[in-house]
């Protein structure tokens, strides 16, 4: 299963990717993060202790977390905001610790963590028109660091705000057949 979580407040790319991935033969679940009620992570530590593997905050993330826990690929879609993702998407990211593995491993000579279970591929799709090189590099850097600390594979894509259908189809194919 592929989980696509997008901020649709600046475009409907999440829906378009979902449809394209479906045509490519994948089972897909899509959430529009900007329509969900998601509270900030409280850094309470419960998900790595008292309620191991479960977030105690009762909000719409309780619908999202089971899907992330069981997916083989997670795709985050957002306008590029100051070289990163929008706050709607970042709220989802911040709450993902519950489905991460809190234990430490060593990879490439550094401490890393990982995701629970068999892990997943991790993709980010950023959109924006006239993005400068610094902003593009920052977005790709964020994805690389996320991938590194999650000890997973995946790729980041940077697109115009209204990408061609062919571009969307290519990305969907790549994710569906990874």
């Amino acid at each position, binding site marked *: 299963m592929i989980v696509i979580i997008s901020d649709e407040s600046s475009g409907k790319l999440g829906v378009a990717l979902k449809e394209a991935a479906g045509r490519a033969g994948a089972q897909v679940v899509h959430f529009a993060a900007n329509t969900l009620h998601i509270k900030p992570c409280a*850094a309470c530590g419960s998900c*790595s202790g008292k309620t*191991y593997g479960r977030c105690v905050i009762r909000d719409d993330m309780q619908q999202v977390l*089971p899907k992330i826990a069981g997916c083989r690929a997670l795709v985050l879609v957002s306008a590029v905001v100051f070289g*990163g993702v929008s706050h709607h998407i*970042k709220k989802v990211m911040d709450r993902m610790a519950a*489905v991460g593995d*809190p*234990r430490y491993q*060593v990879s490439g000579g550094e401490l890393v963590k990982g995701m629970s279970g068999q892990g997943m591929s991790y993709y980010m799709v950023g959109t924006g028109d006239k993005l400068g090189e610094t902003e593009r590099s920052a977005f790709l850097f964020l994805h690389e660091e996320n991938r590194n600390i999650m000890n997973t594979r995946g790729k980041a894509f940077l697109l115009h705000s209204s990408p061609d259908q062919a571009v969307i189809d290519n990305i969907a194919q790549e994710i569906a057949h990874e």
Partner: protein
Amino acid sequence: MNKPEIMLLCASSRRKGTSAMLLERIRLVTGGEVIFLPQKGSLNEVILAMQQAAAIVISGPCYINTYPARLIELLEAASLSGGFSGQKLYGIINGGMPYVHTHRHGLACLRLFAEQNHLSWQGGFVLGGGAMLDGKPLEKHMNRKKIVPAFDLFIRHIAEGSPSPDSLYEQAQIPPGHIMTRVFAKLLTFMVVRRIKKHGHDPDAPNWYLRKKE
């Protein structure tokens, strides 16, 4: 009415955590007031304070390799509001991992915010191993011999309103070597597993959300 010289904004919800401790250390030198970013509700008062300050220092934790969502939300709202005119902006980000690269995206984010909104980016400080401090003084940091003088020099830049170079925090942080990394991995994992088992859970069990269906 005089505008406040410096605004010290804590992006963490923890009043006694590392992010707040670092701002308090700055406040003792520069004066000003430590403001805590409200975790819900309107951000208008914070944005107004940012517009009225001559210099802004933002200190926050690193969540998933950059600042938390609520601070991103503030930056988005502040950007829409506009009204900035050359305020000096400094940033501090602290995270558990002992590597600068793990946390430095937060400063890149602040720099881009400054550039796109007529603020003047003056530099920042990345503190690895900060979560282990858990609000204790910087003198308790495992790299204190280099970190303390480097951070105090960063404070001096803020007090003088001068740019602070990345090299200040880069040279102050020494990642653990190959052997120590393996030791840390085993030790930290032991502590995590002990805590998980103490609460009656099996660290090797499938995630709770997958078992919930069973």
